[in-house]
């Protein structure tokens, strides 16, 4: 009889079954359904009919697009004449009614003003190209008004799931210690890291179920509110309009929001493994989740305004500066605000934090005595 090979998969099964039998997990699923449908209800109540023509009937997509293109063309013309006067006279009077700009500009100010104007012209041109693309192909005036557009707008629900994942991770680990069942778990033919890994996977199996449920409700809500309308997601890349299937954008939004879920819940997992109490783990993780971003940007701003390098460095290497990766990836055009640093740097920082959390969690769980 060879008992040396114990299968790992049943362990993961155990860690999926256990939380699923807790009432709190059942409540989580209930809340996700409730909040999902509440979102649909609120959207249907607040949905505006949009602009109307002189007869009071809503404008068609074609009409809206034609109007907008006209406005964009006018704006570009205006900016171009501004640019011309800037270049000609070295004088600029009203880019956007900015008081800072005096009739006679210093050379570097003039340079900045010219660059800004060029930038506005270029980004307006991009919007113009995208709207022209829509008009030419008879697409809706915006992808946000489609069924998948609604689904993509529901990515915020992942924040709620993050709270649940934190609770699942913290309770999943700590309750074994507080309930005394850890002794029954660790005296089995599995090394401790395997027991913890199965718990870790179990948490994310449930989180994944919750995520799929949310995406499903968001898609359903989109169809309920807006019918089977769709439009590709349009971006302006390398001088041409680029179309991406909208469903990818929906999934990408949820996936990007899940980056924070993964990091915060792994942190909760680490705290629970080290301190063996769920209260501290849940409290600290959620506290950091809600204030982390604010504190980081406050540090960055303070560091910049008062020239305090340590604050700048702290902000630069803070996990919370990068938990939202969407500005790096979902860039529609060059006008969108682009954070400092590259995507590669952001991902590197996140990966570093992730592995730090995981290492500490496994060390804390494996090395210490169990009373």
């Amino acid at each position, binding site marked *: 009889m060879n008992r040396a090979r114990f299968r790992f998969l049943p362990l993961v099964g155990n860690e999926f079954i256990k939380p699923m039998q*807790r009432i709190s997990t059942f409540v989580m699923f209930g809340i996700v359904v409730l909040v999902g449908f509440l979102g649909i209800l609120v959207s249907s109540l607040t949905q505006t009919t949009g602009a109307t023509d002189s007869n009071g009937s809503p404008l068609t997509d074609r009409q809206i697009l034609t109007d907008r293109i006209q406005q964009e063309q006018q704006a570009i013309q205006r900016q171009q004449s501004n640019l011309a006067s800037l270049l000609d006279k070295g004088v600029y009077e009203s880019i956007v009614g900015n008081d800072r700009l005096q009739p006679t500009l210093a050379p570097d100010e003039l340079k900045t003003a010219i660059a800004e104007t060029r930038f506005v012209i270029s980004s307006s041109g991009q919007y113009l190209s995208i709207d022209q693309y829509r008009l030419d192909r008879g697409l809706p005036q915006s992808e946000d008004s489609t069924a998948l557009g609604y689904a993509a707008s529901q990515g915020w629900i992942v924040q709620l799931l993050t709270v649940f994942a934190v609770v699942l991770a913290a309770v999943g680990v700590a309750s074994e210690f507080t309930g005394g069942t850890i002794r029954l778990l660790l005296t089995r033919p599995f090394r401790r890291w395997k027991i913890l890994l199965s718990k870790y996977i179990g948490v994310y199996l449930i989180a994944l179920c919750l995520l799929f449920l949310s995406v499903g409700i968001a898609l359903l809500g989109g169809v309920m509110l807006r019918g089977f309308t769709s439009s590709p997601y349009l971006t302006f890349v390398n001088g041409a309009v680029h179309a991406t299937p909208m469903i990818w954008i929906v999934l990408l939004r949820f996936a990007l929001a899940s980056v924070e879920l993964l990091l915060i819940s792994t942190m909760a997992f680490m705290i629970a493994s080290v301190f063996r109490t769920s209260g501290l783990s849940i409290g600290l993780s959620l506290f950091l989740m809600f204030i982390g971003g604010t504190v980081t940007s406050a540090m960055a701003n303070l560091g910049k305004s008062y020239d305090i390098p340590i604050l700048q460095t702290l902000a630069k290497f803070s996990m919370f500066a990068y938990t939202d990766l969407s500005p790096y990836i979902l860039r529609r055009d060059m006008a969108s605000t682009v954070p400092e640093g590259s995507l590669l740097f952001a991902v590197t920082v996140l990966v570093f934090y992730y592995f730090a959390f995981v290492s500490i969690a496994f060390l804390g769980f494996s090395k210490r005595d169990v009373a």
Partner: protein
Amino acid sequence: MTMDPGAATRKGDAVVQVEGLVKRFGSRTVLHEVGFEIRSGEVLGFIGPNGSGKTTTIRCIAGLMRMDAGRVRILGHDVRKDFERAIAEVGCLVENPEFYKYMSGLANLKQFARMYPDVDAARISEVVTRIGLDKRIRGRVKTYSLGMRQRLGIAQAVLHRPSVLLLDEPANGLDPEGIRDLRLLLRGLADEEGMGILVSSHLLSELEQLCDRVVVLRSGRVIGEGDMASMLAASGPVACEVAFTVGSPAHALEILGGERPGLSRLEGETVVVTCLREEVPEKVAALVGAGIAVLSVVPTTASLEDRYLQMAGGGGVE
């Protein structure tokens, strides 16, 4: 045949070897080179006052605690170096039997069954029947009494047919019937299935009827080890306390030598006398001879307990 040492175990072979076990909590040493063995087919009693290190020893054997020095081998596998193989042969119940309270007893057992390759539904129901929990196994553990949880604790420990059973105070919370069932179950597992069973307990009278051998621990040191029979024989003249319930207590006390502080006294209807075990029959004869109705004669301390108290040098938490 594989090289699994478990296959070669014969009755009487050591299944657990504990050698030079040292455990420190900070600067305090709680186990000083503890060494003993558990043999196949025996029930080994593990006795010691509170805080003597019994539970710590069991935790070290089961891998819950790291030892600072020494070695524990289970069927030849070092617990530290080859944990999974070693612990696969162990079933244990350390301290209180705690379960997932929101699940049924059966769901709990299924959790543990999934962790072994060879425990199926038939085996689970066999064990459940054997520990006498059939009727309530589908109820939530939340609703179980301590005695029922204790039974479930035994069930999860024997589920995978281990060669070694480590039970920390298993009689805790059991009623007299439960204790008798436990004794029969453990004797059966040792005699028929050849398990080596370690039982720590404060219920010394229970150990006396159950165990083949005992190991006595005090202040983290093994201070005595031996067969139950020779242990009892070696105990020599041991004073014990006996309660005589009689028809006329005052007269009986007179016959038994009158009130002597620490030796004999009156407690309501009973006369409590401290004497040697061997003297009890003649005292009964004296009472009967004097025409006193002897309703009951109850030793209030068991003999192993006396022996243990002598070795351990009195009770009290260390």
